């Protein structure tokens, strides 16, 4: 892999054993071009494809119809289904059923990208603001469209909550508009920053292990092990937070305030 060569370069450059930001670098495997558009197959694309294949494989081939008592893998799939389905039901209600496949897709995709990132030598797709912002913006767009389709121009009423004194309205409308339009930013930055910070931290500690060597490296190694556990938790938690916020935004669009 190209990244291994780069790692060696950094060693020889030698101020720090491993550049903590190096893991986020995009490397192109195949240069591709579609009508002037650069669509090269990169490590990011590779891990997206891997996660799509894994999710499809898990959710199709591990589910057997006649199984009254599901296998372990099938229970895992059913558990994810029930988990997201409960999330949608509790946060959006019956009307959310229509959007369940989309929300399930978002959850599984983000979850798998986060978890795949926890494997050594892998690449964390969600540590790139471009990807997380695109996801968040897609959700923002969809939720806004749903709001306008459901309420027509009445959806603008979302920015002027009922029961507010008239003299407060100008200020409140401004606040509501800003908070509405910063949603994709907060949604994407939360995921991206969490993933990037965690992975950077892990890399920094692994650098300490290397530079302190056999004598002093044990302490940072211990910290790293503990931190890896925490990162796995965060990988799940951020996928959950991302999805539940999607549900909440969708609920706002469907039911206003």
């Amino acid at each position, binding site marked *: 892999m190209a990244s291994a060569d780069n790692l060696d370069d950094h060693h020889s450059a030698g101020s720090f054993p491993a550049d903590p*930001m190096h893991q*986020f*670098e*995009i490397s*192109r495997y195949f240069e*591709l071009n*579609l009508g002037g*558009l*650069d*669509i*090269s*197959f*990169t490590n*990011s*694309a590779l891990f*997206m*494809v891997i*996660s*799509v294949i894994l*999710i*499809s494989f898990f*959710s*199709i081939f591990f*589910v*057997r*119809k006649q*199984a*009254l008592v*599901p296998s372990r893998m*099938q229970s895992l*799939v*059913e558990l994810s*289904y*029930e988990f997201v389905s409960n999330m949608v039901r509790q946060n959006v209600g019956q009307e959310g059923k229509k959007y*369940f*496949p*989309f929300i*399930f*897709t978002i959850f*599984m*995709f983000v979850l798998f990208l986060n978890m795949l990132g926890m494997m050594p030598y892998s690449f964390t*797709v969600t*540590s*790139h*603001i*471009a*990807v997380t912002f*695109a*996801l968040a913006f*897609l959700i923002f767009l969809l939720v806004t469209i749903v709001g306008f389709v459901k309420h027509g121009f009445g959806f603008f009423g979302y920015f002027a909550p009922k029961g507010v004194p008239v003299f407060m309205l100008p200020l409140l409308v401004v606040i509501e508009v800003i908070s509405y339009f910063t949603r994709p930013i907060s949604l994407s930055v939360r995921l*991206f920053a969490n993933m*990037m910070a965690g992975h950077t931290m892990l890399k920094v500690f692994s650098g300490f292990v290397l530079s302190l060597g056999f004598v002093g490296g044990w302490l940072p190694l211990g910290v790293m092990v503990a931190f890896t556990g925490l990162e796995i938790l965060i990988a799940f938690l951020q996928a959950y937070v991302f999805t539940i916020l999607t549900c909440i935004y969708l609920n706002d669009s469907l039911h206003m305030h």
Partner: protein
Amino acid sequence: MPQLDFTTFIPQLFWLFLCLSFLYIVLSKIALPRISDVIEERNDTITDDLDEAKALSLEAEKVVDELKSKLEDARSSSQKKLMDERQKSLDIVSSERKKFEKNISKEISLSEEKINKGKVEALKEASELAIDIAEEIINNLYVKKVDKKDLNKFSKDLN
């Protein structure tokens, strides 16, 4: 920071769009309907089984109740039979005893009669013997002959 390298944005976004659309289609058209079918089917089976189990347990309860009432009947009938038999045997015993007592009293009165008869005869014989003896004695003592008629009269007076 590699995240701010804008030249990598387009390929990332292209593949993101491709992967996400593909995944959405696969999940919404194939995987999710199957999973929901499986879960629903299982829930149906479970509720069916539970209903069946409930019906069976009701039936079992009914059978147990029937059995209990039968047992109760059998117990009371056997109690009754026992009482009847006891009464019967008691009756037999008392009738036997009555018969026996009747026989015994008959025997007793018969023997008493016999004894009385014997006693009277014995007494009569004894008095006759006494008279005979007295006659002999007196005949031997007296020179003069004693008339038997006088002695009979004497004995009657004695008595």
